[in-house]
C-alpha cells in the first residue's frame, strides 16, 4: 500500500488547467522526485496533497487519509518546506522555529535541543536572535528548511527546497534529508528542476509538464526509455526545448511594492 496515492487528479483555475489527470503512487520510505519545468503544475499538486487547495476532481490518499475530508489526520502525517517564503519577518529566527515547534506539539526539551541542532546545521545559530527581516535570501531559505525538518513526520514535502542556494549548502542539506530518510524512515517527496538533484537523490522520478505526467520510473529506467546518456538529456527529450515563462501573481506584485516601500523608509 503506497503512502501517497494519487488517482486522476485535476485542478482547474477558471478555464486554465494547472493539473490534469495526474496519477502516481509513492511507496513508504521512497525518495520521490517530481521533475518539471516552471509552471508545470508541481506546486499546485503539492498544495492539493497538503490540504491547502481542493482538487477539481480526482482522489488523493495521504497515509490513507483524504486531504479534503480528513484534513487534520493528513496534516498530522506530513511536514513541508514551501517554495515561496513562509516565515514571519517580525519574529527572530529562533522565534520562528519555536512557533513551529509549539504548533507541532514537540515537547519542550526535545524542541530546544532540535532547534539548536538544526540552526547549527544551517549555520544560523549565531544569528538566532536576529529578526528574519534582516536576513538575506539564502539565509531565509536555510531557516525555512531547518524549520521544515524540526518535527519528524511520516512524509516530508520539499517544494524546490534548494532554489537559490549554493552547491555546498545544497549538498549539505540533501545529505541530511537522505539521513532522515534512512534513519527515521521518512518518505520524501520533492519537486525540483535541477535534474542533477533528482538523479542523485531520488530513487523514483516522475516528469510532469503542462499539468500532465509524461513518464515515471527510476532515473535509470528513464534514461533507458529515452535512450539518452543523462537524465538531463532525457528531460529535454521529454519536455522539449522551449523556454517556459511564469506569469507574476498578485503576491509577487505586492512583495515588490512592499520592498520598495520599506526601502524608502
Amino acid at each position: 500500500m503506497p503512502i501517497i496515492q494519487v488517482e486522476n487528479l485535476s485542478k482547474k483555475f477558471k478555464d486554465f488547467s494547472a493539473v490534469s489527470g495526474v496519477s502516481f503512487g509513492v511507496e513508504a520510505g521512497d525518495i520521490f522526485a517530481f521533475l518539471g519545468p516552471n509552471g508545470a503544475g508541481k506546486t499546485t499538486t503539492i498544495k492539493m496533497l497538503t490540504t491547502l487547495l481542493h482538487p477539481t476532481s480526482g482522489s488523493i490518499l495521504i497515509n490513507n487519509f483524504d486531504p479534503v475530508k480528513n484534513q487534520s489526520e493528513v496534516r498530522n502525517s506530513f511536514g513541508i518546506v514551501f517554495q515561496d517564503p513562509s516565515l514571519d519577518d517580525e519574529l527572530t529566527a529562533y522565534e520562528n522555529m519555536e512557533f513551529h515547534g509549539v504548533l507541532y506539539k514537540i515537547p519542550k526539551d526535545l524542541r530546544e535541543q532540535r532547534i539548536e541542532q538544526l540552526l547549527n546545521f544551517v549555520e544560523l545559530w549565531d544569528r538566532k536572535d536576529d529578526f528574519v527581516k534582516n536576513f538575506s535570501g539564502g539565509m531565509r531559505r536555510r531557516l525555512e528548511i531547518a524549520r521544515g525538518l524540526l518535527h519528524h513526520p511520516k512524509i516530508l514535502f520539499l517544494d524546490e527546497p534548494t532554489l537559490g542556494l549554493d552547491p555546498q549548502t545544497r549538498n549539505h542539506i540533501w545529505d541530511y534529508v537522505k539521513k532522515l530518510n534512512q534513519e527515521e524512515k521518512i518518505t520524501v517527496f520533492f519537486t525540483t528542476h535541477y535534474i542533477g538533484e533528482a538523479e542523485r537523490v531520488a530513487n523514483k522520478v516522475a516528469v510532469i509538464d503542462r499539468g500532465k505526467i509524461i513518464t515515471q520510473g527510476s532515473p535509470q529506467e528513464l534514461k533507458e526509455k529515452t535512450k539518452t546518456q543523462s537524465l538531463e538529456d532525457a528531460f529535454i527529450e521529454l519536455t522539449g526545448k522551449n523556454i517556459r515563462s511564469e506569469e507574476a501573481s498578485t503576491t509577487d506584485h505586492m512583495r515588490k511594492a512592499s520592498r520598495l516601500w520599506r526601502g524608502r523608509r
Partner: protein
Amino acid sequence: MSTIYILWLRQLKRYFRSRSRIIGALGQPILFLIALGYGFGSIFQKAGGGNYVEFLAPGIIAMSILFTAMFAGIEVIWDRQFGFLKETLVAPVSRVKIMIGRTFGGATVAVVQGIFVLILSYILGFRTANLTFWRIILVIVFMVLIGLFFTALGTAIASLLEDMQGFQLIMNFLVQPIFFLSGALFPLNNLPKVLTFITEINPLAYGVDGIRGALLAGIHFGFAIDFVVLGVITAVVLVIGSYLFSKIQI
C-alpha cells in the same frame, strides 16, 4: 492551550515591536480630542450637554480599540500575502484554536491601545469623579468585548479577501460608519428615527455606552443589555470566523 498561547504571543510581539505603529495610532485620538473636544466644547455646554471632553473621551477610547482590533483581524491578509499563513494552515491544529489565538492576541493589543488613549485623554483634560475599582474593571470588560468582537469580525472578513485591494472599501464603508454612527461623538437621545435605528444595530454603540456608563454617570442602553448584546454577537462572529477561516484555500 499552547497553540492559542503561541498565536497570542506572536500578535503581542509584533505589536510591541512596531513602536511607530503604536505612536502613529495615537495621532488620530489626540486630534479628535483636541479639535472636537475643545472645538465643540462651548457649544455643547451651552446646549446643556455638559462637558464635551468628558463625553467624548470614552467614544475616542472605543474608536482606537475599534481601529486597532479591525486592523489586527485584517492582518490575516498580510499573512496570506507574505506566506506566513501557509505555515499556520498546514499545521495539525484545529482552525477554531487558530481563530481564538488570533482573536485573543488582536483583542489584547487593542485593549492596550485603548488604555494608552485613556491615559492620554487624562493628560488632555479628561476627568471623571467616580472611578472606583469595580468601575475600572467594568471599563476593562467593555474594552475587551469591543476588542474581541472587532478582531473576530476583521479576521472573518479577511478570510474572504485575497489581497489588500478591498481594504479601503472596508475602512470607508464599514469601519468609519461604525465609528461615526455609534454615539461616540454625540448623545443617542432625540436622534432622527433612521439614525436611532442605525445606532441600535451598531455593535460599537453598545461598547461606547458601556465604557461611558462605567467612566461617567448615566447610561443609555444599560450595562446588562450592553454586555449581553456584545457577548452574544462576539460568540456568533467567532463561530462564523472560524468557519470562514477553515475554508481558506491558498
